[in-house]
């Protein structure tokens, strides 16, 4: 915990979550307030990060974008972690047909570049809502956790303490809940921390390609908007891209910190 608080990346993540949760109350301007006379303006006193298309205040658009990114990533990581963790652990534990079918499903979903898979999934709805995006990202997202949980269970299953527990007559359920699942938390937590970054990036990418949640302020959509006027008004693309990059980098670095904090073998060796 101490280690976490000493790392700048953890602070970036906390700051992001803070802005996402209370930020929208702090910015006075609505991200939907249209002011055509002041489209794509450079930072000024009225708009301290400048304005985007239609004269929307960039600072408040970015804050609302942060909220969307946080909502989507929290939901997707929670759903994927739970679903993937349980399915993967069961697959590793039971083996047999269950394992074969879970792994086949993983193969099937991973047989596809993530962006293309999400486009295909989102094409099911005409105008995707936030829920649709969460659903689509979770459908592809749980696979990572399932693979990880299964691999961990496969290796844990043969370890002395599990074999010993079995020899002492522990039931399968007891082995799963008392011995295997507690040992899964660490690796899954590391994966989840990095996973936040991954989900934020994927949401931004989908919005950038024009497939994000309709009627929501998204970093990816802002970046797309900024890229189309890159030659004349680079500030929109620069700032929205910077926001995405900082947060994604923050979560990725935080994942490493969590890993080192959890693994005694890595502790203090950096």
């Amino acid at each position, binding site marked *: 915990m101490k280690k976490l608080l000493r790392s700048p990346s953890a602070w970036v993540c906390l700051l992001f979550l803070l802005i996402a949760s209370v930020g929208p109350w702090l910015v006075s301007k609505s991200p939907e307030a249209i002011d055509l006379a002041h489209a794509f303006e450079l930072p000024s006193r009225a708009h301290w990060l400048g304005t985007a298309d239609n004269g929307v205040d960039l600072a408040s658009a970015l804050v609302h974008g942060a909220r969307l990114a946080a909502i989507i990533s929290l939901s997707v990581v929670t759903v994927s972690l739970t679903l993937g963790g349980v399915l993967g652990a069961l697959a590793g534990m039971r083996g047999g047909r269950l394992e074969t079918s879970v792994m086949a499903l993983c193969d*099937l979903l*991973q047989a596809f*570049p993530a962006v*293309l898979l999400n486009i295909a999934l989102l094409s*099911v709805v005409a105008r995707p809502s936030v829920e649709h995006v969460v659903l689509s990202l979770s459908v592809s997202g749980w696979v990572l956790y399932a693979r990880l949980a299964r691999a961990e269970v496969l290796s844990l299953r043969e370890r002395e303490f599990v074999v010993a527990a079995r020899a002492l007559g522990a039931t399968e359920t007891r082995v799963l809940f008392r011995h295997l699942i507690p040992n899964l938390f660490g690796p899954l937590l590391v994966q989840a921390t990095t996973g936040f970054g991954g989900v934020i990036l994927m949401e931004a990418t989908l919005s950038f*390609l024009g497939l994000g949640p309709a009627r929501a302020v998204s970093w990816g959509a802002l970046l797309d908007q900024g890229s189309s006027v*890159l*030659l004349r008004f680079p500030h929109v693309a620069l700032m929205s891209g910077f926001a995405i990059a900082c947060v994604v*980098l923050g979560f990725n670095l935080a994942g490493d910190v969590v890993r080192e904090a959890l693994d005694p073998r890595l502790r203090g060796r950096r």
Partner: protein
Amino acid sequence: MASPALRYLLYRSLRAGLTAFAVVSLVFVLIRAVPGDPVDAMLGEQASPEDRVAVRKALHLDEALPAQYARFLGDVADGTLGRSFRAPDTSVRSLIEEAFPPTVELSAWALVIAWLVAIPLGVLAAAKRGTHIDRVASFFALSGLALPTIWLGPLLVLLFGVKLRWLPLPGDDPSAPAALVLPAITIGLALAAGLTRQTRAAMLEVLAQPYIAAARARGVTRTRVFFQHALRNAMLPVLTLGAAQLGALLSGAVIAEKIFERPGLGTLFLEGFFARDIPVVQGVVLLVGIIYVAVNVALDLTYALVDPRVRLS
């Protein structure tokens, strides 16, 4: 009579074929569940009902789903992959044949850049663990992961296209070799990031093994241990990432082609998607599925060749 390797290859190919088939069938169903009407997208909302019916009939959209599915399988079997809704005289196969080479060229250069950057950097970081070199390499890897392709592309355009004017801007002649540089770097750096981390982690993992210490204790030199004992074993997980990266590579191609306004599979796919040109979307999906499973089969075989512990079964 068949050797185990051949039997394994047959088994894997069969399974791979089934996976590709499952992917395509899934997409076939999903695409038809889209509420958007391809006829609306083609004719516009104001088209007369008679025109709509005629177009619907011409595109066989009036048939039942099983009939459409059978027709689709027929199109796959004869290799044409059906005809584009937007240009009924053009087979999807010819569209893909046109879009495929630019994407392959772009992806190949991106891969070359990624491997040339990542493997030396990852090995160096592991060798100099805990030093400034390691921190710089790790930071590079992470910024590469964090710098989204969707941001890196515009940044590179801004720097090399607008400020320095060294390289062409998006929309300029995409067939010029110079136009390939920025898109390839955009995708390549994103790939290099993950690969650097993986190489470093794999090297460290192997270096912590008892047999490395044993080799050192026997008096084998550091360099020899590093390259002969560690690097060889560390390449296996790196290879695994190679397959996972195929997805990133193709996703990257979709994004880079949009940013740099290049022709290719990604552009074809997105255009086809927004126009609800179903045969085109299906065709690209099918192609990507096949490429993916083919690479995976090849990878499994490489595994068996590289690692004697992996048995073909």
